[in-house]
């Protein structure tokens, strides 16, 4: 945990320095009648910097298993990768088709569920999504090129 804390602390220090400096440079410190838009951001940056220093120099609190196992890391990356791909492609393939594909990929590829179950659940979930969001709540979901509803 010590190493992770130090890296986090370094990142926080850089971030808070940039935050305070940016606030002072671009926004007003004091307005006509009172504190301006840079006032609180500057102080927050300063407080965060202090807390970051505290994290950097204190004796690290040992926590046992913060690092995921190889298999765990692989699973998280797969889930995250497929989710990002879904969001990026959402405008192209549409929300409803996208949901079905997303579920199918994760359940079949990552979780090794049987084919029939994968297909049934993907279809039902995509249908429910359409029913609730598109049909009942009139949310204009991204349509995509395959299918317009």
């Amino acid at each position, binding site marked *: 945990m010590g190493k992770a804390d130090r890296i986090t602390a370094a990142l926080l220090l850089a971030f808070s320095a940039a935050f305070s400096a940016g606030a002072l440079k671009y*926004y*007003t410190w004091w307005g006509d009648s009172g504190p301006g*838009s840079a006032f609180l951001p500057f102080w927050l940056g300063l407080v965060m910097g202090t807390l*970051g220093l505290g994290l950097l120099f204190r004796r690290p609190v040992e926590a046992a298993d913060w690092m995921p196992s190889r298999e765990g890391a692989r699973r998280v990356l797969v*889930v*995250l990768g497929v989710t990002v791909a879904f969001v990026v492609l959402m405008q192209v393939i549409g929300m409803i088709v996208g949901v079905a594909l997303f579920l199918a990929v994760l359940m079949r590829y990552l979780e090794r569920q049987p084919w029939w179950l994968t297909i049934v659940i993907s279809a039902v979930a995509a249908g429910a999504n359409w029913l609730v969001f598109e049909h009942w709540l009139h949310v204009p979901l991204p349509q995509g090129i395959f299918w317009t509803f």
Partner: protein
Amino acid sequence: MGFGIALTPFNIVMAIAGVMVGMLIGALPGVGPPSGVAMLLPLTFGMDPTSGIIMLAALYAGTMYGGTITSVLINTPGESASVVTCLDGYQMALQGRAGPALGIAAFGSFIAGTIGVVLLMLVSPLLAKWALSFGPPETFALMCVGLTTVTLLTGEDALKGYISMVLGLMLAMVGYDIISGDARFGFGIPEMMDGIDFLPVAIGLFGLGEVLHDAEQVGKPPVPKGKYGLRDVMPSAADWARSKWAIARGTVLGFAVGMLPGAGPTVASFLSYTVEKKVSAHPEQFGKGAIEGVAGPESANNAAATAAMVPMLTLGIPGSATTAIMLGGLMMWGLRPGPMLFEKNPQFVWGLIASQYIANVMLLILSTAFIPLFVRALRIPYGILMPLIITFCITGAYSLKNSVWDVGQMLAFGVVGYAMKKLGFSPAALVLALVLGPHAERALRQSLIISDAGVGIFFTRPISAVLMALALLAIAVPLLRLLRKAARAG
């Protein structure tokens, strides 16, 4: 008056739906009350605010009980307020007494919840009237108390809690400044000019973040065998005799603790467990299946969940992550929580309070009748649940404003939430600060205008001085602890 509003057929259906969905969400591992409320908030935007908040309040009550089900059956708390329920609840389940454990939790929750609503009804108007005299300095001091106590109590690591909180405040600075009109930290991106919306952040941190965290593991513990029919969940006369005072004490304690901004149901349940163990004639049975160890904390967390509405409605200060999200919902509906709410929107407030009675009745009926159903829901493999929860996070985030930007934001904060959970930071403190940030800033700046830039204004006005002292105390406690540790080590 409230019952006339809450008892319309549509609102009753909303209350039932809220309890049902809430129990289901609470029973699913990895989705607690904040994520449930965050994910379902978009669904209520099409309704009028009263129906919306009725559903959310019912949902909150339902998730509290749903979390109990997983604690008892698979030793996995669905949310933090039922962590202590695992201690004796799961032991009871292993002894084949899961039914009475779930039953006494349901009855305890019902009793505590109902008494809690009565107290809510009595206390809120008084507090609201008192809070009407608050000016900007008092408001700012109150926000400080809320932020510092929440931070202190939600995490194990105070320093990391404060870092999470300040990060939330920094994020709250993004977007148009209400007083000067400056577009702060927008980087020329139009979506950033409106600020960082807390809902995609909350869905990301609590929904996606938790899912990613849980996705690391394959499989989960099985549900112990036992009978879960209606007759099997009824506690026996002996169970009642042992539990009745635990429920009474839990209710009073839970309500008192829940009203404090920041303490909330989790702290209440821990305190209740400690108290029950202290007063018990046979403390050695605790941790080995003592029914008081389930009845007390479960009553306490429900009373506290109801009490958490008091500061939210009367002061505009949420008592927990879940009420913070509900508060954000109120603001989206154009309501301003705070003392004026009782005068300006009485039908909303009383409708909500009355619906709490109804939600408690529904909760009792549904929880005893549908326990077998929820036991089955727990048997759904996580490999199927996990992708489904993610799709819900995505469509939920999208439907807020029909924008892919929000989905991206949700995704980004999902990763942040995962990292925070891994590294021991507190997502709850971040969300709370993000919700309160703009209000705290406005109150601070108005105060400094009034005082002509003197900080003394926060310490010379009596109410504000007391509140500030409390906030400073919350900051000082972990510091003192640290110094003492250093002194001992050196």
